[in-house]
Each structure stands twice: as structure tokens, then as C-alpha cells.
């Protein structure tokens, strides 16, 4: 018995590693993205060990120093080490980006599946609501939401900021998942399940949802990328993460704007961190789409 189970366990492991290897060979850019993401996650998790300085330590004798051996990315106007702040910043960027996008995708996805399956009035109603929300530019809605909701921190995570980013994105997820679910709902195997007298719950969870894994998997990295961008934009505009917390977007706002001619490193490196992270998630999302969506495969 245990013999058999270890055997299948090993087989699954082997299958997984070959799948990953195949993915890496066919989608080198996607694999590079995944590695970059892994690097950022490690940086975030082990920030206290990785970063050379305490990100909050001000040092007024070393204000706005350029990159040097002591401070690879220089220091900011408070004399704080830019590299350390970037490393710590990856925590909030990833935590916010991942929670907000997963939340948005989950809310939207659920509405999308229900709308596709039940159709009729529920579908019409949600579609109208989605139309309404989508007609407001994402950043505008997020800006207003972030300002209106204020701050509500749970641990280090500002829940309201998560909501402000998740809500404008949810309708997008709903649209995408709905159309994917619609084509699945029309498949004969779903009709066969209805004919077999299964309950709606069983059909949605057991038959439709597993087949939505692929579109959802493609959706999430793209959403994380958008959410990280959004967080940086909101922090830049002053309604996101506030001082003295280390956040990439925040590092680009305020004094940095006026001083960037004298101290370009305070601008270049945090922006680069945002760009590279978003880039990595986008590459991964694209690669997953190419792999999982047979239509886009060429």
C-alpha cells in the first residue's frame, strides 16, 4: 500500500519536473520571468538578512550620496540606503500585488462563472454593473477608492489599499472568466452533466471550474503585474503606502521628483525594481498563455 503510494508520489514528482523543464525549454522568456519572480520573493522573505542596512535608519551625514561600495544604490534625502529600501519594498509590492490580484480575480471569477452558468437576469444585471465600473478608468477608481477608504492595516498590509486595487480589476476578471466559462457551458459534456441530473453546485465546481484553471492561471500573473504597477502609482500620488514605510512607488514621489536631477539614483533604482518585477510577471503570464491557450499557440 505505502509502496504504491510512494511510487505514484515519485511519478508525480517526475511528471512535474519534466513539465517544468519542457516549459522552460519552450518558453525561455517565461522561465526567465519565473526565476526573477523567485528572486524577488526570496529577497522579500529574507529581507533582514539580504539587505545591507536597516531601511528605516536615517543618516544625516550621508544624505543623497551617489552609488558607492558602501551604498550600492546610493542614499536618499534622509541618508537611508536605497538598496535596503528596495529590498524591503519588494515585501509590500509582492504582498499587495498578489493579495489584491488574487482577491480581484476571485471576486470577478466567481461572478463571471455564475453569470455564464445562470445567464438570464443575473447575467444582464452583473454585465450592466461591470459596464458601469469599467467605464471609469482603473487608476481613477483606485485613486478615489484609496482616498475614500483611508487606511485599515492588518499586520503590515493595508487592507483598504488591497481593496482599492482589487475592486477596479474584478470586473475585468469577471469579463474574461465569463467568456471562458460561456464556451465551456456550451460544451456537450456540461450538457451531459445536466442531463445526468447533477446539481448546479456540482456542475459549477466539479465540471466547469477545473476547466477554467487554464484561463485563470494565465490571468493571475498579468493581474499581479497590473496590481504592482497600480500600488506604485497610488503610492506615488500619495494615497497608497505612506512614509516611512519602504515602498517603490513612494520612493519615486515627493522629494525624489524635485531632486532627481541631482540624485538620479533615488529615481532610477526604485523605478527599475518596479519595472523588472512587473516585466517578470508579464513575461510569465505571456508564456503561460502561449502554453495553455491553444488558440494563441502557433
Amino acid at each position, binding site marked *: 500500500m505505502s509502496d504504491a503510494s510512494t511510487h505514484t508520489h515519485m511519478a508525480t514528482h517526475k511528471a512535474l519536473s519534466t513539465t517544468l523543464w519542457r516549459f522552460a525549454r519552450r518558453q525561455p522568456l517565461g522561465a526567465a520571468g519565473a526565476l526573477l519572480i523567485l528572486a524577488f520573493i526570496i529577497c522579500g522573505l529574507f529581507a533582514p538578512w539580504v539587505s545591507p542596512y536597516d531601511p528605516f535608519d536615517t543618516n544625516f551625514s550621508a544624505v543623497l550620496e551617489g552609488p558607492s561600495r558602501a551604498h550600492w544604490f546610493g542614499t536618499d534625502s534622509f541618508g537611508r540606503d536605497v538598496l535596503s529600501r528596495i529590498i524591503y519594498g519588494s515585501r509590500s509590492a509582492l504582498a499587495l500585488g498578489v493579495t489584491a490580484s488574487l482577491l480581484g480575480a476571485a471576486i470577478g471569477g466567481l461572478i463571471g462563472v455564475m453569470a455564464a452558468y445562470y445567464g438570464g437576469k443575473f447575467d444582464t444585471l452583473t454585465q450592466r454593473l461591470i459596464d458601469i465600473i469599467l467605464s471609469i478608468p482603473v487608476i481613477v477608481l483606485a485613486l478615489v477608492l484609496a482616498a475614500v477608504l483611508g487606511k485599515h492595516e492588518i499586520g503590515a498590509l493595508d487592507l483598504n489599499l488591497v481593496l482599492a486595487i482589487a475592486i477596479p480589476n474584478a470586473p475585468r476578471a469577471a469579463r474574461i472568466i465569463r467568456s471562458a466559462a460561456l464556451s465551456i457551458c456550451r460544451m456537450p459534456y456540461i450538457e451531459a452533466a445536466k442531463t445526468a441530473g*447533477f446539481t448546479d453546485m456540482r456542475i459549477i465546481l466539479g465540471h466547469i471550474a477545473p476547466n477554467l484553471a487554464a484561463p485563470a492561471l494565465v490571468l493571475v500573473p498579468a493581474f499581479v503585474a497590473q496590481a504592482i504597477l497600480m500600488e506604485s502609482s497610488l503610492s506615488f500620488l500619495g494615497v497608497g503606502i505612506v512614509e516611512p514605510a519602504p515602498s517603490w512607488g513612494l520612493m519615486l514621489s515627493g522629494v525624489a521628483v524635485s531632486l532627481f536631477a541631482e540624485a538620479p539614483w533615488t529615481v532610477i533604482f526604485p523605478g527599475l525594481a518596479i519595472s523588472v518585477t512587473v516585466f517578470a510577471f508579464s513575461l510569465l503570464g505571456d508564456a503561460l498563455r502561449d502554453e495553455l491557450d491553444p488558440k494563441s499557440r502557433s
Partner: protein
Amino acid sequence: MPVWMPQTYIGIQKSTCKILFLGFRVPEAREAGLSLDEPLLAIKNLKVEFASERGIVRALDGVDFEIGRSEIVAVVGESGSGKSVTALSLMGLLPRTARVTAGQAVFEGRDLLKMSSADLCATRGRDIGMIFQDPMTSLNPTLTIGFQIGETLREHLGFGPAESRARTLELLKWVGIPDAESRLDQYPHQFSGGMRQRVMIAIGLACQPKLLIADEPTTALDVTVQAQILDLMSGLVRKLGASLLIITHNLGVVARYADRVVVMYSGRIAERGEASAVFNNPRHFYTAGLLNSAPRLDAPVQDRLETIEGQPPDPANRPEGCAFAPRCPHKIAACTQKLSLLPTDKGTLSACARQEEIAAGHLHWGGKAQGAEPTLAKQDEPAILTVDNLVKHYMVSAGWRSPMRIVKAVDGVSLSIKPGQTIGLVGESGCGKSTLGRMILRLDDPTSGRIMIGGHDATHAKGDDLRQLRRLFQVVFQDPYASLNPRKTIGEAIGEPMRVHGIAKGAKANQRVAELLNQVGLRPEMADRFPHQMSGGQRQRIGIARALAMQPKLIICDEAVSALDVSIQAQVVNLLTELKRSMNLSYLFIAHDLAVVRHIADEVLVMYLGRIVERAPRDRLYAQPQHPYTRMLLAAAPSPDPQREKARSQAALVGEPPSPFAPPPGCAFAPRCPLANEECRRAPPVLRQTGPDHHVACLRSEA
């Protein structure tokens, strides 16, 4: 005037002289020093490989055949036999993953496979025209019909706008498009499928090519339209003195037209030669099997259809010897050796190792056919399904400009099925037969009418009531690839309904799954596999097993065998017949193929534009069809018998099924009906009894 001048061109010669020059193309070839005895196209040892995820797959493994001048050659084979790859490689239209690795295709002295792309472009469309399978997708949706036909003329013959327009108009009239003048500036979506295929023919023949290649030209069309298109195409080709290469999976389609036949199996040629010789005296067991397994209207109904057991080999894993050997009941040791095409006693070429024994009459395919009697409905037993005046109307709008219209998809259909009885429901696409099935399955809600299942009113049943009723009736769908959930194993697909309904649980359920798999002719170990590991025929068997898991009284088969190859189709039809006998099942067998329905149904209903036009016991319907539409359907059905096909008159085949958006007034069939008079156009006729259990909705069926 040269004799090969097409008659239709005589009128044109006065108005535009340029059109005439095309009539002189045969002498042109003569001047080039080519003998007319030489074949127009000679394909030698053609090999094509595809790069796939599983490595290199050889789709064509040495194909040789020739097409003579003014000759009609048919390449026949089931899916995966390489017939379409052959056509595409001639035209240089293979997908990027494919590569021609060996061989020649000499067309008028030049090898098509080694031509420069400029030469190939000059040849395509001008010397070789092509027609594809799906007319719905083969025309550019954003360009007018006139532009798309005229384009070829401008490109190859240097026609100016006025000339090309005039010639395009001629071509449209030529391919039988009514009102050609006004249709010239219309877009493809404004044409029906049959009309679009006519446009494709006009494109293919615009420059009067020497060869026309038609890749499954009628597969996507309804049977009454199919015959018209084939007649048109072969007629025009004969008039032009051109050659025609028809690629098809349906032997019947080509029996009427083909001079020679090439039978392909798994990337190789099994047999080729004179059409009548191949059809009448096949010298390869695959050809014989294929001919025997197709259900026919012109032979007595058999108890069991002849079948070819098993399925074609995986082209990545093709046997070195005869690829058909694993399925052949007469295989011997010699079949594992590499075989080549050898001449037979009938002047054909066959790759069968035992062709001499076939010729000597020592070996036959299969056994003697036995007649089968239809199951007679027991009058006293209550019906398992009664449908009473069922109606389904949709509100649709055809576009922004057009107002909302009511489409009567199903317009008052009544039927009843007794236990153990099979009702065949026949009709062309868009007649509402599938909508009717879906309403009975309660996947669509009827607009009005009543559905009684097992004595319970199912019309508006909901929730648990409906779920309980659903145990009585199950469904088998058409598309074997879409009817199984790709993420569930075969065992889960069959076992889940039993568990949900508490029919069987745990180990008992697993045991039932194994039994059911056995019952549908699959091995019980297959329960652990996923659908993508199974072939189309196997999936359809799984679909049947899933339906049986609920122990239903009635199974609705919605085109359940239409997507399958002939040899596999026969297997599934036989399986359904056996199950019906052993389990006293009832079927509602929805199909467009009259021949298949004849083999399985006890009573047949013919549907046209939402209404039943004729209903009769099987033998009576096929022997004495009364509705002109039924007669037309029967006349149009092709049969793989050249003598019979050539003798058949197709004069009666006209028109296409009307659009349900704009149904004609009165009898919907009147516009195509040879018997219709004023009265028919006034009101739709009702079903009336004309014989024992025979009902016809026609005012003039006796005329």
C-alpha cells in the same frame, strides 16, 4: 469552333473577345512539345512529414498516382489517411510544421514540389484551381464576392476592372447563382453554404485551369445540396476539358463521377485504378471493408452492419508492412513485410498481399448479410416518451437594421416512443431536429407544448423532480471530442452519475464501470485514462457507457455517429442495436443520414423547417416515400455503386433549405417542390394519414 469549347461561352464571344482565348489552351500545351498522352500530373513517391510534439510523424509514406487530361480522379480515405495532405502538398499549401521529404509531382513537365515561389504563384489559380471543404470559412468575410472572384482574373490574366466584372458576372451565372448582377457586390455572409461553395467553384475555375482540386467539397453541405454541387462541379470540369481531383471520405460521393479511384489508408495507397473495377471488384481488404461497412439504401437492411474492427494505426507508429493488417481478418505472415502496389486481374493496382486469393474468389470480406425486421410497437404498452405539439420560437435579429423576428425552430411537433422502439428523426441542418432533442432533454425550454416522460409531465419539471426524471432519459452527443470532460478520467465520467444518484457506490460503482466498459466493447483498464488518450470511436463508446450508467429507458442520440469515419460508424451503430435488444432501450435517433437511420430505426420521422412532413414505419418510408421532400432526400443520397449512381436522375434536386429567418409562406417546401401549386403556398399542410401508420403533410403527395 473547337469541339472542347464550352457551350456557355458561345454567347460571350461576341461581346468580349478576350474570353475566347482560354478556349485554346489545349493547343498551347501541344506547342510546348508535350504529348497529350502524358498524364497531366504525375505524383511519384511523395513523402510528407509533420513535426509534432511526439517527434516526426510521416503523414504520407510514398504516394504514387497520376491524373490524366480531362480525367476525374477521386482520392478516398478516412480521417488521417493523408488524402488532404496530398492535395495541400501539390499546391504548396502545407502548414509550416510540414515538410515534403521526397517525391515528385510533375505537372506538365514541371515538378510542382521544386518550383520557385513565383512560379508556384503563377501556377496556382491559373493552371490549378482549388476548392476547400468549408465554404463558410473559405471566403474572406470583408471582401465582396465579385472582388474575390475577379481578383484571380486580374492577377493571372491582367484583366481590367470592367473586363473582370463582366467575366465575373458570367462566372456567377455559370455556377448557377441566380440574380448574379445584384449578388456581385454582396459579401459572403449574405450567401448560403451551397451558394458559397458555388462561388468557390467560380473562383477555382475562373482562369479555366487544367486541373481543379476539390478537398472534401461537399462534406459541410446538406445532402440535397451536395448532389447539386458535385453535378455542377464535374459538369463544368468536363465542359472545360479540365481534370478534377476530388478528395473525399465518402465512397458514394464519387461513384457517379470518378473515372479512377485512389484508396488511401494511413499515408499509403491501398488500391487504385478504374473506378468501376475498384468499386465492383475490390482487390484490397480495406477497400472491401470500407465498401461493406457503409450503410446503404440500395441493399436490404442488415441485422448487423459489416464493420472493420479496431482503428487506424497511429501514424507515428505505423507498421512496416501493411498498415491495415492489424485490423484485417485475413492477415498472414506476408502482411508484415513491406508491400508495393501490384497489378491485379482487373487492371487495378493493389497493395494487398492476398489479392490473388481475393481475385480467385477464395476470400471474402465478412459474412452473409441477414435481413432485420423492425421492432413493432406493442400497441398496449404505454409510451416511454410522448411529445405533444411542441413549439420553440426564438426572438432574433439578423443585424442592426433588421427588426426582431420570430424564428420558429420547432413548430408543433408531436411524437411518441414505446419501450424498445427506435424513432429516427431525419432532416437537413437547421430543420430543428436538434432543438427538438434539446427540449426533450430539458436543456432548452419549450415555448409551448407538452413533454411526457415515463408517464410524468416533464415540460416544466424543476429541481429535484427534474433530477429524478432525468434517470429515465440520457443523451449521446455528436462530437466525441467535446462530449467528455477533458479533466475527468473515463472511470469518473461513467461512475459519477451512478454515485450521485445512489445507483452504486464505492467498489460496487467501480465494478459497474468495468461492466459498462465491457458492454460497450472497451477494456476495463481504460477507466484510468483521460479522454485525450482515446480515439473518436472509443470516446463515443464511453459516451454511450455514461448514458447507460443511469439505467435509462430512453437514449436520445443527437447525430451520435455523424462525426465518425465509416468503419467506426458501423461499429457504433451495431453497438447501439445490440444494446437496444439486450436492454430493451428506446432511442430517439436524430441524424441527417437516411442510410444510417434506416439501419437502426423502427419508425422514421422526416423534418423540414420545424415541422414533421412525413412519418412512417421504416420499410414503408423507404419503399414508398410520399412527401416530395422525402423523395428528394432519398434521391440525393449517394451510394458506392457506379452503375446505379450513373443511371440516377438528379433533375429533381433543386434549391436549398430556406432560411428559418425568412420562411416561405404556406408549405415550407413549396419553393423547391416539383408538385407545388397555388394552394400549397397558402397555408402549411397538416399531417394526414395516407396508409397504415403512414402520415404525410402534403396536399399533393398523390399527384
